[in-house]
């Protein structure tokens, strides 16, 4: 990992309109790192991700992607920053009027000067990486939810971005595909030095891929724990983290307040 972090989140307060979801959080993601954001439902994981990919400007603080602030950038600058990132949305967000192949090829067509057959071959390779080479001619509505998700990953990877943001990549995938996806993430991170920011609930997946983990909670509106998956699993200071990593319901750790959002899901 390089000394210079590729993502720097500085004192960010995140939320929508008047609703503050996360307050004054700061962290850094190193180049080539697989960084996982953990937390129960409703703790603001996806909100944080939406801020990091520039969809929502933070209420306070700033987020730097490779040294650039996406909020203050506009026009060509913003475009240059956006080319460094790829995003896989929770629902896949594939364009329903295009086949899977066309979905993946879109970025290559628009932003590179690859000849048509080259774009087609690279697209097939991306689809092959997620095990969908044979399904390129299908429309998104004709394939299963898990396949849509994998196609969305292929689309996010099409331009080989430096950073790949993934919102719940393995939710809805079978364990085998999920493990294959973990291998893919590791292989891309190690061989092409891609940085991954992954929001997930899946503990096996976290243990398999994560270099570093932060855990958010609804109660603290911020980061409650940070470290490697092994660090977090061992730590006993915070009952929520313990419950999460040991898949215990809220009462198991003697909690009195509602912690439904923090039970291992």
């Amino acid at each position: 990992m390089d000394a210079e972090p590729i993502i720097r989140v500085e004192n960010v307060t995140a939320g929508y309109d008047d609703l503050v979801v996360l307050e004054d959080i700061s962290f850094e993601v190193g180049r080539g790192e697989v960084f996982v954001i953990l937390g129960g439902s409703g703790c603001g994981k996806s909100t944080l991700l939406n801020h990091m990919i520039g969809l929502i400007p933070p209420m306070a603080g700033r987020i730097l992607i490779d040294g650039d602030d996406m909020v203050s950038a506009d026009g060509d600058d913003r475009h240059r920053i956006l080319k460094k990132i790829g995003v896989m949305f929770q629902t896949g967000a594939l364009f329903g009027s295009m086949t899977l192949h066309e979905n993946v090829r879109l970025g290559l067509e628009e932003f590179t000067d690859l000849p048509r057959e080259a774009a087609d071959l690279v697209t097939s390779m991306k689809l092959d990486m997620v095990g969908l080479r044979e399904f390129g001619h299908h429309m998104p509505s004709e394939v299963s939810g898990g396949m849509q998700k994998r196609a969305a990953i292929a689309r996010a990877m099409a331009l080989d971005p430096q950073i790949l943001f993934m919102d719940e990549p393995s939710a809805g995938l079978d364990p085998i595909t999920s493990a294959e996806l973990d291998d893919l993430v590791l292989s891309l991170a190690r061989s092409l030095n891609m940085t991954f920011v992954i929001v997930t609930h899946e503990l096996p997946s976290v243990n398999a891929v994560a270099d570093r983990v932060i855990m958010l909670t609804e109660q603290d509106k911020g980061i409650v724990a940070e470290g490697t998956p092994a660090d977090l699993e061992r730590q006993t200071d915070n009952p929520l983290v313990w419950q999460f990593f040991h898949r215990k319901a809220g009462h198991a750790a003697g909690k009195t307040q509602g912690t439904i959002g923090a039970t291992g899901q």
Partner: protein
Amino acid sequence: MAPEALNQTEATLLAEPGDGRTLVLRFTGRLDSRSTGRLWRQATQALKERRPERVVVEAAGVDYCDGSGLGLFLEIKLCGRAGGFAVEIRGLRPEFGQVLGAFAESDFVIRRPPPKSPLRVAQEVGAVTAVVWRDLSSQVVFLGELCAALVKSARHPRRVRWKDAVRVAELAGANAVGIIVLIGVLFGLILAFSSAMPLRKFGAEIYVADLVAISLVRVLGPFITAIILAGRSGSAFAAELGTMKINSEIDALTTMGLDPMSFLVVPRVLAAVFVAPLLALLTNLAGLVGAAFVLLSLGFPLVAIRHHMQSAVDAGDLLGGLFKIVVYGAIVSGVSCLRGLQTRTGPSAVGISTTRAVVSSIILLVVAEGIFSVLFYCLGI
């Protein structure tokens, strides 16, 4: 990662002859999606022109290689496979080689599907006929189911979702008053004005009042109202039910043991049948007011206009028109709900259903109007 990989070194390709008919392709620099397009053209061009027996790819100078760069190496291998020459890749860094090695060449040999033989005219006519036939049968089935659901609702009126019906009546009826009045007045104005011009030649301008009253009350008032209902509310019904279909809400209703017909269609049809006559009355009134404006501007006194309008139409005409609009309301709401329930999957599906709802409504309205005209003529109404 090695720091030099981040350098923005210019990617280059040197194609040089080796021993015998060997072609050496020497790649250097950063092979990414920005630079690969150019090199791709150069490489494929060189392979085509030189027709080598053996190709050696010297990749030791490649600092960085993303998916596009790996695609280029794979393409050279595929060209070798197709052109019958051996390809050897030398010096590619192991981390890139590992990713490239994960792709089996045989998987990427393009298998073109056999071209489809064009359908013959007779086949196409047959296919279209089958589609139309299936659509007609689905409409008949739907009509039957709707009638059964309405009879059931009449037997158990407490089971009808009146709250939904009232909400739909408000949306389709009360909220449509503005546009109905506007179009009614304008239509009356246009009708009166365009018929006043030819009738002036015969000195019969005052009969414009009779003409407008008869045509509005008997035919045009209900018909325009039905068209507005189709455009405004029919499309909304189809879109609403279509979205529910896509979100599996209809499936959820069915598995909960609730009949979508009674639950969704019946309240909409009842609401439409209830508000349609009221809207038609409003169209008639607004149209007559519009016509009266024209006649007033031509110098006729209001009392004469009113007298002519009253004597031209009787209660039979009005009731006939209202009967038609009740049927039209049922047609528009029924067929729009049917189109909504027939929605398939995909983002364009709701749009297609909405279009089909409006088009089917208008076609059925014209057909029904034709049938009514003949029927009323035969019955002497």
